[in-house]
């Protein structure tokens, strides 16, 4: 198996790579492990001291839970991997406090974190609006968790497609009609002839329309190469999401092998 990086977005939150020499089942395994098994920090419990805002406690707690928090996986541990679920331990639980008085909007940046390395990724996310005389005071507890129990603990969005292969065999008679239908810009005109734009061919959505327009165009998909997109929500970098996913796969395979040995 091989990985070839295709592109990185400007803000470095999204990467696109080619996964070569593997099977669809593995590409899907990687996708699911990223979505469901890579741990990130999120607020789990909220204690309200005061809330006279228009939003109910539950709504504010829900909004706080959905905030992506920058995650340091070298220090924090999953509660289930710590003794007594790690209640009160610094490497398991992190307290964040919020105190705000109206009028004005309360933002994610108003949360005071006990650990400066864990903070909201998007400080300008609005939490609640306060009118004059209204106030909000709370203490939140953030823990590591996994996407399989709640999507707030999912590190990002991962998806893939079979690698498209676009080929032109022989002479294209309806070049004009093909260019007109070509919303992904996978074709271009070269010296008055239709040609495949090399770089853009990967964004082909495998539409059969082109081959219907002209039999000289063939569009197929490889089932051993995948165009994989990984979009991080900001808790971890796309690279560390991938590394962590690989670690999880390895751990689970080792556990599976041990269980098989035991039962044999």
């Amino acid at each position: 198996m091989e990985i070839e990086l295709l592109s990185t977005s400007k803000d470095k939150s999204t990467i696109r790579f080619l996964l070569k020499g593997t099977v669809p089942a593995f590409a899907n395994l990687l996708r699911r492990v990223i979505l469901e098994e890579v741990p990130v920090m999120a607020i789990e419990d909220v204690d309200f001291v005061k809330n006279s805002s228009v939003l109910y406690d539950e709504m504010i707690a829900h909004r706080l839970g959905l905030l992506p928090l920058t995650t340091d996986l070298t220090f924090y541990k999953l509660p289930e991997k710590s003794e007594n679920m790690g209640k009160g331990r610094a490497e398991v639980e992190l307290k964040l406090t919020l105190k705000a008085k109206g009028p004005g909007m309360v933002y994610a940046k108003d949360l005071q974190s006990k650990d400066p390395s864990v903070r909201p990724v998007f400080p300008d996310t609005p939490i609640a609006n306060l009118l004059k005389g209204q106030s909000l005071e709370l203490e939140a507890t953030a823990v590591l968790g996994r996407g399989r129990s709640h999507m707030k603990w999912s590190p990002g969005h991962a998806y893939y497609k079979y690698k498209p292969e676009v080929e032109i065999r022989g002479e294209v008679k309806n070049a004009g009609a093909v260019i007109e239908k070509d919303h992904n810009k996978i074709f271009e005109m070269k010296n008055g002839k239709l040609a495949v734009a090399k770089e853009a061919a990967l964004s082909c959505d495998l539409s059969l329309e082109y081959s219907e327009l002209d039999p000289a165009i063939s569009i197929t998909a490889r089932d051993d190469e995948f165009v994989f997109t990984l979009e991080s929500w900001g808790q971890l970098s796309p690279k560390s999401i991938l590394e962590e996913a690989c670690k999880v796969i390895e751990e689970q395979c080792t556990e599976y092998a041990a269980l098989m040995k035991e039962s044999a």
Partner: protein
Amino acid sequence: MIIPVRCFSCGKPIGHLWAQYQGRLSKGEDKNKVLDELGIQRYCCRSVFLGHVDLADEAAQFKKF
């Protein structure tokens, strides 16, 4: 009511972009262009912005039960 922190469908964090979006729209900019430039690509996230009516300040004036 108040802009969701994340997109309902894909989970992308979008709440922090609402103020920018509103500000640019009030200057007469085109919705399509603003959404593109804010990096809101998928139609699930775009629909959250297009369908949202910010009523939090109006609702805040009434009593909560």
